[in-house]
């Protein structure tokens, strides 16, 4: 430890003060630049979130299970619904296929496409292959019911 300290001291004393100050300033400014970038990226991600909320019409899927309500925000332009653990919205219901249906968005309008699921995909109790969705629509996959709703305020603030 003492050797290292003495080595550092030797290095510092071998440098001219002006060199040392300038080197320290360069390192400090580079650090500040990196911090500023992280700060700006944070601000940008908030803006991008807002833009995405516009693109996705700020919707979410609501599911009621055993007196509890679950909200699944629609966070990508392609959302897969199914029983499999890799599905975007996982529904642990035996009547739901592993990869049941896929939801896509274009210009704030969401639509659902059935992926040849055995138990079928229903929108407002009508079996569908592909259909555009509106706020308040009830989507039934097997026996699992989901409602397309406006995203709750608490989630929007997050």
């Amino acid at each position, binding site marked *: 430890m003492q050797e290292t300290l003495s080595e*550092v001291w030797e*290095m510092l004393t071998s*440098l001219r003060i*002006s*060199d*040392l100050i*300038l*080197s320290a*300033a*360069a*390192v400090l*400014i*580079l*650090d*500040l*630049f*990196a911090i*500023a*970038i*992280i*700060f*700006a*990226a*944070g*601000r*940008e*991600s908030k*803006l*991008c979130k807002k*833009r*995405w909320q516009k*693109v996705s019409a700020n919707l979410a899927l609501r599911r009621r299970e055993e007196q509890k309500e679950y909200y699944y925000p629609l*966070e*990508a*332009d*392609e959302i*897969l619904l*199914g029983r*499999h653990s*890799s*599905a*975007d919205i996982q529904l642990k219901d035996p009547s739901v296929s*592993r*990869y049941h249906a*896929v939801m896509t968005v*274009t*210009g*704030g309008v969401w639509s659902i496409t059935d992926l040849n699921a055995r138990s079928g995909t229903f929108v407002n109790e009508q079996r569908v292959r592909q259909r555009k969705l509106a706020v308040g629509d009830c989507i039934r996959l097997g026996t699992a019911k989901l409602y397309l709703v406006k995203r709750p305020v608490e989630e929007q603030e997050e």
Partner: protein
Amino acid sequence: MYKNKLSYSGTVILLFLTHLTMLGLVFIRGSVVAPLDFLKLAGAVIGLDIIYLLITLAYKQMTYTLDFMLLGILNISLIFQSCFGGIHLSVKHLISCVMCLAACEAGFLLTRNHEWIRKNKKYIYILILLLFISIIFFTDNQKKWITIGSFSIQPSEFIKPCFILVCAASIVELHEKLKIGFFYLSKDSLILCIVALFIFALQWWCHDLGSLPTFGMIFLCALFCRFCYPKAKISKRIVAIACIAGILILIAAWNFAPEYVQKRLHVDIWADRYGDGYQQCEALIGIAKGGWLGVGAGNGSLYKIFAHDSDIVFATICEEWGLLYASLSVLLILIMLMTVLMNPPKNYYHAMMTAGVTAAFLMQMSLNIFGSCNLIPFTGVTLPFLSTGGSSMMACGFLVGMLKAGQSPLFQHEVMKRKKQKQKQKAAKAAQKSRRVNT
């Protein structure tokens, strides 16, 4: 840009200050012999800053941090490269930097609309095929370079972005599966596997095994994303088998690699100091000589060593600028990759692209830095942005453009709106013309 005015103006000021303090360091601590050369360097750095920032203003993007980062790193790299072996403006590297920025914009504009690039993926396959043909038939004696006059191009560098795009395409189009033997494969997955095999075989043939880990990492990343991707019905068991197979291939490659690779894998650099371990020994001595704050720009001695500005560039920077500044420069590249995580892409195509680009950069940086520090065998790959080389810089620029595309994607309805607006404008112009003719 206007929405983030305050934080952007602060970042731009700090960007300029970073370059100005570096130039100050060059002037005070460096070996400035001809003040005119120094002024040329300063002019080039500040000029590039101003021009690129003005160009960026013209593009409507959601995010600008990647532009600032790229500009910051490229000008830092220009200052580093211009100080090796005496202070002068490295015109060759300046051109490379400009080409890198242009490639970045090209990459951004080409991959911004994921629907469009998905539809036109056949052109990517054609491009990759052309690159293969150019490497096999037009490079000189397996040296990977195409020489046209005083310019040399390394086509294998351009395969990286194309390979990432092929990976991304294969991830998205997984619905239509074909049964081949006992396996269900989608058409794009099959193409990906063939392309990957071709690339690995080509690298082996070219004796360019340094780039193999980078391509391998991109392929592994695609495999991992496939596992995460909802429509990919690949089980954990298959991924586990693939991992075990990968480890076995690595062990086999380690033991049965060609003689020239075995030499590098098992070389004792200090025992063979003036033979195979020469570059690494000199690099380590250079890093030790530079200490924390370096010997001053242009005062180093590593510039006499072969590939001081490409393969062992990290050591050369450490010697002249110190370990602290060299590490911070690398950290800046890492932060550039990190900022992407703060705003994850909203579609699978861009997500795969981002993951592939990040994996490629991380692998290449690790290979270069740890290789020159003798922590892993020396591979001879370039350090992204900091090493010299036009092909490498252009490929890196294109990759950053792809990252930018993931940050500022163009959604389909926006494309439709633009098309409608253009049609309206055309119709209005036509109506005006017809009115003029009538009058």
